[in-house]
Structure formats: structure tokens, C-alpha cells
């Protein structure tokens, strides 16, 4: 089976996403900048609600006159927040140049308006998302900012980098970060790690290392524990575990101590490669160093051991998990079921379903698919149909592996009509695309014909 159950995948990867990208905790950023950043992060939502946006057309003169009429009729004094939201609304539909011009118009007509970093951040985020390949409009906004006596700070860097990366311009983001570091302030850890992660996703590892070296040498920006964890995760995903070990020693040399999250990451690397002993080794090392394993550690370990066929040990770790105060969840059970099915303990896996439900742990889509696959592989078609019935009544989607195996098993035992019904369910529940559901069915039927010709089947 060799694949990570999807529920498991989300457990590890979402945490990795969340950890470095937690801007609210950033200490040096002032509150207002944080708001501006978040508002500017979702201009698409603004444009989806045209009713709320007072600006109907991207035309500059219309926008100016609309602004003037609001300014003339408003009874309350217009504050910074108001001007910012005007710019924000206009930016969601207009070009960068026009937005900048509207900004200048506001500044001219409202002498009380003194723009703050948040104002420029709106313009900057807009400029970074603009689809032109050069960074000229970004530089234009930055110059405007500096000339107005507002120095770019760490929040500025963060917003620019995130906006650029979100529009797929990672290398531009890197250049801009270097430039801003040189001229103004170094990035904070959140921005740095965010960019590092994007670089890992988009380019070769050497490129990433170059970036780290350059930041370290030229600007004294050091990678932290999270940076190392991101790197380890990245090399583990590309199955380069030797490099992961190197990174662990580099991390120690840099004076950091592996935390639970870092251990989990490297353990996940071993587990996906079916290296059970190494995964257990990581667990023992954690214990030695006094790092308390968490739920993810146990889930990973159970998954890894099940994957390489060491079901008994996986079961033992499940007990250890309970002793440490973590109730096994659907991920742990599903991993174990997967292992048992692979070992040929299919009926044991099925009884595990009853066990988990008795303990109040609801099975998820992946659990059902694992069981269905296991039953069909073990040629326990009756049980398989039972599981399929459960899935159907719970509206669970079929995964392609389980679907293909079920269809094949049905066809093999002469239940072509049932196989067609399964095809209908797969299409109806939108489990698979019509094309892949059909080609599975077609291939299976072709196989049946061939087998019949050779006098093999049914």
C-alpha cells in the first residue's frame, strides 16, 4: 500500500505550516501593522463582495470624485483607518499606478492625513501582487514610502515577501528581502522562515543553502530551530535522509536542541521510507534526551512500524501511547489496520474497527478505504461488500486504490452488475473523476476478457 493515510498526512504537514507562519505572535510588530497585513492578505474576498466596495469602476477620476463627495459630506472627521480602507477598497479593483495616484490625491486634499506604515503596506501588497515581471512598481512604492519619511520596517518586509510568494515570485521575494535587509532592517524570524519554506518548495537545495549562507555572511541573519526543521522536512520529503542527519548535526553545532517537532519530522522521514528500526531509534533518542513524545510522535511511529510489517511492535506502542495519556485516534487505528491487512491479519483489522468504535473513536474516510482495500485484497469479498455498504450509508468517498480493487474483485467473482453499481457510486459521490473511474472499469473488464480467453477466470 505504501502511502500515507491522508488524515495522517494532514496531521504532520499542517503543523509544519502553522508553526513558522504565526505572525500574531511576532513581538516586534505593532498591532496596526498586523491588521493591515491581514486585510491586505485577502483582496480577493473584497472583490467577491462588490456590494461592499464603494468603488464601482477602476477609473481614477471617478474614484477621486467619489472620495471628494464622501469627504465633503462626512460629519465625522476622517481618520487614518478610513483612508486606509478607502485605499484598500480601491486597490482591490484598480491598477497600482492609479491606487498610488489616489493616495497622492488624498494626501493633497486632506492636510490632516499623515500616512503611517500601514497605509504604505496596502500599496505595497498591491504592487507585489501586480502581474508585471519587474519589481519596478514595488520599488516605486518603497521610494514613495521612504520619501514620505516612513522607514520600511520588519512588517514591510514580511508583507512584501508574502505577497510576492503568494503570486508565485519566490526569487523576486528573495532579492527584495536581501535589498530591504541591506537598506533598512533585517527580516524577523517569521518572514525569514516563511521565505525559506517557499524556496525549499520552488528550487534545488543548493540554492536554499546559498541563500542561508549569504544572509548569514552579509547580514548576520541566522537560521533558527524552525529553519532547520523546515530544511529537515524538505530533505526528508525528497528522501535524502543522509542530508537530514547532516542537518541534525549542523543544528546541534549551531547551539540548538532538537524539540519534539523536529524529532517528529525526521521520524516521519524514516517512516515514509519504511525504515522502522531508524524510526524506533529516533524515539529512543528522544527519550534519552528527555524530550517528551506527543501524539504525533506515536502516530508516526505506529504508522511507520505498520508500514514495514512490524505490527506487534506497533500495537505495543499503541499501549505506550495510552499510558502516556494519549487516546489513540483514527490515524493510529487506521495505520495499525493497514499494517494488519498487509500482514494477512485481515479479520483482526476488521475487529479493530469495532474496538475503535467501542472506545468512541469515529473512523474516518481513510479507515474505511483501508479496510475495503484490505478485504478485497484478501479475497474476503463478503466482508468487503459489508464495508462498502457502510461507506455508502455514511457517504464516504472511495479512494482510487480501494475502488480499483473492489471493482476487480467483483468482476472476478462474476458480479459485473455490482461492479457497475460501484462505478455509479464513485461517479455520484464524486470520489474520482468520471474518466478515471471509467478507465478503471474498462481496464478491469478487458482483463476479464483476456483471462476468460485463457480459461483462467471464474
Amino acid at each position: 500500500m505504501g502511502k500515507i493515510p491522508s488524515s495522517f498526512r494532514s496531521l504532520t504537514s499542517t503543523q509544519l505550516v502553522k508553526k513558522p507562519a504565526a505572525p500574531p505572535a511576532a513581538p516586534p510588530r505593532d498591532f496596526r501593522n498586523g491588521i493591515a497585513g491581514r486585510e491586505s492578505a485577502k483582496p480577493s474576498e473584497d472583490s467577491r463582495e462588490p456590494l461592499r466596495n464603494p468603488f464601482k469602476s477602476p477609473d481614477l477620476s471617478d474614484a477621486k470624485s467619489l472620495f471628494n463627495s464622501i469627504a465633503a459630506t462626512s460629519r465625522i472627521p476622517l481618520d487614518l483607518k478610513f483612508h486606509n480602507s478607502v485605499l484598500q477598497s480601491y486597490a482591490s479593483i484598480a491598477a497600482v499606478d492609479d491606487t498610488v495616484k489616489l493616495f497622492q490625491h488624498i494626501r493633497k486634499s486632506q492636510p490632516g492625513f499623515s500616512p503611517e506604515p500601514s497605509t504604505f503596506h496596502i500599496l505595497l501588497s498591491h504592487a507585489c501582487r501586480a502581474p508585471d515581471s519587474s519589481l519596478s512598481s514595488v520599488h516605486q512604492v518603497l521610494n514613495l514610502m521612504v520619501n514620505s519619511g516612513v522607514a520600511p520596517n520588519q512588517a514591510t518586509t514580511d508583507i512584501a515577501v508574502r505577497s510576492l510568494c503568494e503570486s508565485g515570485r519566490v526569487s523576486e521575494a528573495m532579492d527584495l528581502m536581501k535589498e530591504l535587509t541591506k537598506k533598512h532592517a533585517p527580516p524577523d524570524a517569521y518572514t525569514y522562515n516563511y521565505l525559506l519554506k517557499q524556496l525549499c518548495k520552488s528550487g534545488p537545495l543548493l540554492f536554499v543553502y546559498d541563500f542561508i549562507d549569504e544572509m548569514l555572511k552579509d547580514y548576520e541573519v541566522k537560521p533558527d530551530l524552525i529553519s532547520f526543521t523546515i530544511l529537515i522536512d524538505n530533505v526528508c520529503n525528497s528522501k535524502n535522509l543522509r542530508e537530514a542527519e547532516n542537518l541534525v548535526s549542523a543544528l546541534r553545532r549551531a547551539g540548538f536542541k532538537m524539540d519534539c517537532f523536529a524529532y517528529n519530522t525526521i521520524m516521519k522521514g524514516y517512516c515514509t521510507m519504511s525504515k522502522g528500526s531508524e524510526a524506533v531509534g529516533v524515539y529512543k533518542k528522544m527519550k534519552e534526551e528527555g524530550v517528551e513524545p506527543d501524539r504525533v510522535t506515536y502516530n508516526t511511529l505506529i504508522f511507520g512500524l505498520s508500514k514495514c510489517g512490524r505490527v506487534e511492535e506497533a500495537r505495543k506502542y499503541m499501549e505506550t501511547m495510552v499510558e502516556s495519556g494519549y487516546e489513540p485516534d483514527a490515524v493510529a487505528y487506521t495505520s495499525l489496520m493497514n499494517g494488519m491487512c498487509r500482514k494477512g491479519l485481515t479479520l483482526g483489522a476488521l475487529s479493530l474497527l469495532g474496538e475503535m468504535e467501542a472506545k468512541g473513536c469515529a473512523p474516518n474516510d481513510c479507515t474505511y478505504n483501508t479496510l475495503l482495500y484490505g478485504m478485497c485484497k484478501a479475497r474476503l469479498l463478503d466482508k468487503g461488500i459489508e464495508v462498502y455498504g457502510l461507506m455508502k450509508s455514511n457517504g464516504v468517498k472511495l479512494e482510487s486504490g480501494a475502488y480499483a480493487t473492489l471493482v476487480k474483485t467483483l468482476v472476478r467473482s462474476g458480479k459485473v452488475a455490482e461492479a457497475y453499481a460501484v462505478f455509479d457510486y464513485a461517479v455520484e459521490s464524486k470520489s474520482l473523476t468520471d474518466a478515471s473511474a471509467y478507465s478503471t472499469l474498462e481496464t478491469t473488464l478487458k482483463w476479464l476478457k483476456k483471462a476468460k480467453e485463457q480459461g483462467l477466470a471464474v
Partner: protein
Amino acid sequence: MLPQRLKKAITDNPKKLGNLIDLVNLPSTLRDFLGQSQISRLGCFIRVWSYIKTNNLQDPKNKNVVNCDEKLKGILLGKKRVELAELPSLIKLHFPKEPK
């Protein structure tokens, strides 16, 4: 593992997928049955299969066999009884062969 390989083969092979979902100009027999002049092989299969279901053409004694009505006979080589298992290959006959 077969299913993953299979899935990969489909997504990695645009030619094969194209053969399945590209619109094709239909011969007159099919055109009369479907009431349209262009359809993909996939679409055609789904239409024929739902035609069988809505008209209850499956043999009540053996669901794997379809008792064709006059209309269906016309597009399935004039056969009176057709096994469900051969339905895809019969439909495929109306469509141009995959270039090798």
C-alpha cells in the same frame, strides 16, 4: 501496487485520457440514438449505461446480461443479449482507434 500505477498511467498519459474525453463526430447510427452529433467515448458510455438503467433492460434473472430493445440493438451490432462486461468494447467499436 496496481491501483496507484493505474492512476498514474491515466494522469500521466494525456493521449489515453484524450482518447476517452475528446469529442468525436458520430456515425449516423449513434447520432440517432444519442440525439447529438458529437460526444466523447466516456460520455457515450455513461449515456448508454443510464439508458439501460432507466429502461430496466437488465435481465431480472441475471443482472450481468442486458436484454436489448430495438433502439439499443441498433448500436450494439444487432445483438439481442449483451453481457455488461463487453459493453465498453462494443461502444469502443464506434470510435476511432487509438493511434499507436
